[in-house]
């Protein structure tokens, strides 16, 4: 088999997590209006102030238009055809322990390789699992509570910690921010809330597994993480979705707030259904993620491995407000078959001596289109600010594309900026060299790709790094001969 044949075979690998769970769901009629917004809020027994916030967002959204600047193309989305709420029935009773969780659901997690109990007990990971739109299981909450860490579903936080939610909700991503974030603000279903109080180092990695499981259901998670003075937390987000023919919209919002000397590390492995090898189906992933280094010497670090979705529109960013604060962005984005990824970051330097690091690794295969879009802006006040950016692209085959759009806006002469970029192709010689040493073509591709992405993978927590390494290999199976 020639390399081209193997390339095309690897790129035509079927999605392995494509199965559907039969959990009886409670769903709203399709469409979006004030009644639906109010119904979501009512369903969650939300206080008036939150309903008002949602409605303000909805009314603002009506005046907005979908952004068109990203290098992605897709048929128009009919926002009135989407259902804005779905919940697994069992969630109504609110499971108190794993024993109360729908066994069907647990089997789904197992198929995905997330044995909840095992992970929870052996790996010491607390899992706040989001299944469709409602959190169904939260583990380790008690041991977290002992040190004062709050980790719960967003809905719970609204009831139990309203002051905190009220204080920080929209403080990083305001409800007017952008089309998709504003939509999310109006209709968000659930998500995670994490609060780490002053001086506390969160004793375990916090993890949320997202999964879309309802036909034609948009998912609108909202995550809010706050680390007070001197606190630190590492948060993992992982996603898979069952195979679908119709496109599913996902518009999440994540807000991070780090006060003086606080550290937040946010890691994502995103493996949603990317569409089939002809580009049919797949998730539309329009995500707004932003962190605010509000305090001095605070640090926010984003690490993402994006292998799924048919469209990815995502720019995890940092606002470096506090003096000496640090922002980091490490990304691997893979676009295979007809996937389109437009992803990157914004580093907004405001405080003195703020530093940021951007490492982006884009992998394109099949007919995939991969775009890095990054902005570094340094305000006049950001005296002594520094940025280092590295953007590398790897091409597999000759039908794909890689694009880089770095934007720079520097208003002080004391700033230091470095930018490195490279584009390379998996060469016949590299593949042959590996094969001559006994590796199959697929193993060779996986090896080369993982080598390319290593600088980013090593930023992930250990268990995630292993998963991500496998995922890169699996996502490219059939792409090289």
């Amino acid at each position, binding site marked *: 088999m020639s390399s081209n044949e193997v390339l095309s075979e690897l790129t035509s690998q079927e999605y392995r997590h494509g199965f559907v769970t039969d959990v009886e769901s409670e769903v709203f009629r399709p469409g979006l209006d004030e009644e639906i917004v109010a119904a979501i809020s009512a369903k969650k027994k939300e206080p008036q102030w939150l309903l008002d916030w949602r409605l303000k967002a909805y009314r603002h959204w009506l005046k907005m238009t979908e952004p068109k600047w990203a290098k992605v193309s897709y048929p128009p989305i009919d926002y009135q055809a989407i259902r804005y709420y779905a919940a697994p029935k069992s969630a109504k009773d609110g499971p108190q322990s794993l024993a109360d969780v729908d066994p069907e659901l647990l089997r789904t997690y197992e198929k995905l390789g997330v044995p909840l109990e095992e992970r929870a007990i052996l790996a010491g990971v607390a899992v706040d699992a989001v299944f469709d739109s409602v959190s169904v299981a939260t583990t380790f909450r008690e041991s977290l509570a002992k040190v004062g860490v709050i980790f719960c579903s967003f809905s719970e936080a609204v009831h139990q910690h309203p002051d905190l939610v009220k204080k920080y909700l929209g403080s990083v991503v305001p409800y007017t921010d952008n089309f998709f974030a504003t939509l999310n603000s109006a209709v968000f279903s659930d998500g995670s809330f994490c609060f780490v109080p002053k001086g506390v180092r969160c004793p375990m990695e916090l993890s949320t597994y997202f999964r879309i499981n309802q036909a034609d259901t948009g998912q609108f998670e909202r995550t809010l993480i706050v680390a007070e003075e001197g606190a630190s937390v590492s948060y993992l987000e992982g996603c898979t979705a069952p195979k679908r023919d119709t496109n599913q919209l996902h518009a999440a919002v994540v807000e991070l707030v780090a006060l003086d000397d606080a550290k937040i590390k946010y890691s994502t492995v995103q493996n949603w259904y990317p569409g089939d090898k002809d580009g049919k189906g797949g998730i539309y992933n329009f995500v707004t993620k932003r962190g605010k280094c509000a305090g001095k010497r605070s640090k926010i670090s984003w690490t993402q491995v994006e292998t799924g979705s048919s469209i990815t529109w995502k720019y995890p960013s940092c606002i470096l407000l506090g003096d000496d604060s640090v922002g980091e962005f490490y990304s691997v984005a893979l676009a295979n078959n007809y996937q389109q990824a437009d992803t990157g970051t914004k580093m907004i330097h405001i405080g003195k001596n703020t530093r940021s690091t951007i490492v982006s690794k884009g992998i394109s295969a099949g007919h995939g289109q991969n775009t890095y879009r990054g902005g570094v802006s340094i305000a006049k006040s950001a005296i002594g600010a520094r940025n280092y950016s590295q953007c590398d692209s790897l091409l597999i085959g000759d039908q794909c594309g890689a694009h880089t759009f770095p934007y720079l806006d520097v208003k002080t002469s004391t700033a230091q900026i470095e930018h490195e970029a490279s584009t390379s192709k998996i060469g016949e010689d590299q593949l*042959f*060299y590996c094969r*001559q040493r*006994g590796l199959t*073509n697929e*193993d060779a591709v996986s*090896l080369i790709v993982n*080598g*390319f992405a*290593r600088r980013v993978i090593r930023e992930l927590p250990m268990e995630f790094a292993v998963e991500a390494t496998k995922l890169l290999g699996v996502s490219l199976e059939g792409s090289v001969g």
Partner: protein
Amino acid sequence: MNVTTTILEIRGLKARIAEDGTEILKGVDLTVNAGEVHAIMGPNGSGKSTLAHVLSGREGYEVTDGTVLYKGKDLLSMPPEERAREGVFLSFQYPVEIPGVANTYFLRMALNAVRKHRGLPEVDAMDFLALVEEKAALVEMEDALLSRNVNEGFSGGEKKRNEIFQMAVLDPTLAILDETDSGLDIDALRVVASGVNSLRSADRAMLLITHYQRLLNYITPDVIHVLSDGRIVRTGDKSLALLLEEKGYGWLEAEAPVGAGKAS
């Protein structure tokens, strides 16, 4: 050794470049037995590297005629990785860089691929470490090179050392060394050659492909073949190399092939 085992038997091998149909090998006959070291010499463009590529299964060539038996099996029908697992090792003229992949990690994957093929379990971590240390010493590889990425930022000499180191760990039955001496200074050449010499053994065959006689000052082959215009035109012992050094390749091309391909 009492019984002669034939490792490689090439008969009437003809091959051309797939892209433009240029015929490079025009009927090569060669027999290499276990324990033997054969040198293939010849001027640029004579087909030396093509022979190495065809034997290792590199894409871009078409075999139009002839057979190649390796340990009695049809070598040409195997994909490159299967040849490697069966014990065919090519030391590359231009070793390839694999950024981000640690040298020892790569080698361990390769070794396990070979072991799996032979029905052996994956190599134990401690055993592998010991093996690596032992073999690295053969070519005076520094520890730093072991943990660095495969050939990334290696000097020419370090790359060639790395090839011989890999060969030592993978323990092939047939080793093809393609221009291993090119780009080496005299010290590196000495180290690499002594590594190769230490790997000579009664059950291994080696094919040294070289333009210059100089390598043969350090590695004494059992047989020397001269390849010219796609055919073996002369076969002899060590003295043939010295003759070539003195007279160049020009005089051979005027003469009819003598004892072509009869190796032993």
